[in-house]
């Protein structure tokens, strides 16, 4: 699953929940799924951030002393 796919599904879940058309039982299941998707997305963003920082450090190290 890509970040975009996860985020899209999460948004759809939130919209369904906000419309309030689901059964209570279903709502709880959706919420659980939503939280799972949220954790996945946050993990992806954290990883991206870490990668960016690492890259920035590497680039700085490679910058010729001038």
């Amino acid at each position: 699953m890509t970040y975009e796919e996860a985020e899209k599904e999460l948004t759809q879940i939130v919209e369904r929940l906000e419309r309030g058309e689901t059964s209570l039982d279903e709502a709880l299941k959706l919420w659980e799924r939503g939280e799972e998707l949220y954790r996945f997305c946050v993990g992806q963003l954290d990883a991206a951030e870490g990668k960016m920082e690492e890259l920035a450090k590497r680039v700085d190290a490679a910058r010729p002393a001038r």
Partner: protein
Amino acid sequence: MRVDESFAEEVLVGALDGVHGNLEFSGELPDRSQWVVRLQFSADDARLAGRGALLEALFRLKEKLAAEGLFAESRKRALPRLPRRVGLVTGNDAAAKRDVLTTIQARFPPARVLVAETYVQGPRAAAEMVAALEAVCVAPEIDVIVLARGGGSFEDLLPFSDERLVRAVVACPVPVVTAVGHEQDTPLCDLAADRRASTPTAAGKLVVPDLEELLAGLARARDGLARGTRRSLERHQTRLAHTHERLRRAPTLLVERRRAALTQTGGRLRTLSPRATLERGYAIVRREDRLVRSTTEVTTGDTIGVEVADGSFGARVE
């Protein structure tokens, strides 16, 4: 009269004014019906025409070449941003060559330059420069050529207006930058060149980028890249946090909405219960725990229970 062609080629039409030499005349009558006459002129000195005649000849050549479209703006090619190798056609006199090389070296130290030294003045200059230009432009990796010469007299710069050189500049497969004489001189090859530089130094600046500037630009681009990526990441983080907030609230809202609906339903249920009716003043009568719906269900002396809105009490039928 036959004039040696190799010499004739070197001079601009109309540029000579007075030629000195020997005229030889010989004749024979091989078959009595026809004379064969041989006339030969060997020139040993020629004088250049006056400035006026030269200018007129130059003007005519300029008109002719312009009519062919050789000076058209549309013909001019863009100079390469970063040439693999620069060709330099110049005299072996120090100044112009040194200025171009020094400027290139200072701006872009790793630049590679192929120098072709040639005559840049005198009767052989035009043909020599054409040959040098043709040789340099086919050398490997040449992406741009500089044709440079320092200042000189009007006559000194004449070869740079030679038709052959102008055509060679036009035919050159890579862009040509000219830097000939001083600002006010405009030899015809300047008009045919893809770019004209006012001085050899200016030509050097045109053909290579400033490495420092290039590196600074690259650094700025990379900083922008990092900033852009960070901004994109932050935008995603913000949006995700917002979506998560909505996700957190949604079930609570759902339950609250259900609760509200339930309360409403409960209200409707209560309006259907007899209590509301009792509150309006009605009473429920029971005899031995059974509802009394008719006068036939009780007789005088029976004990009955009466229920009203706020409680119940006993009573006796009379």
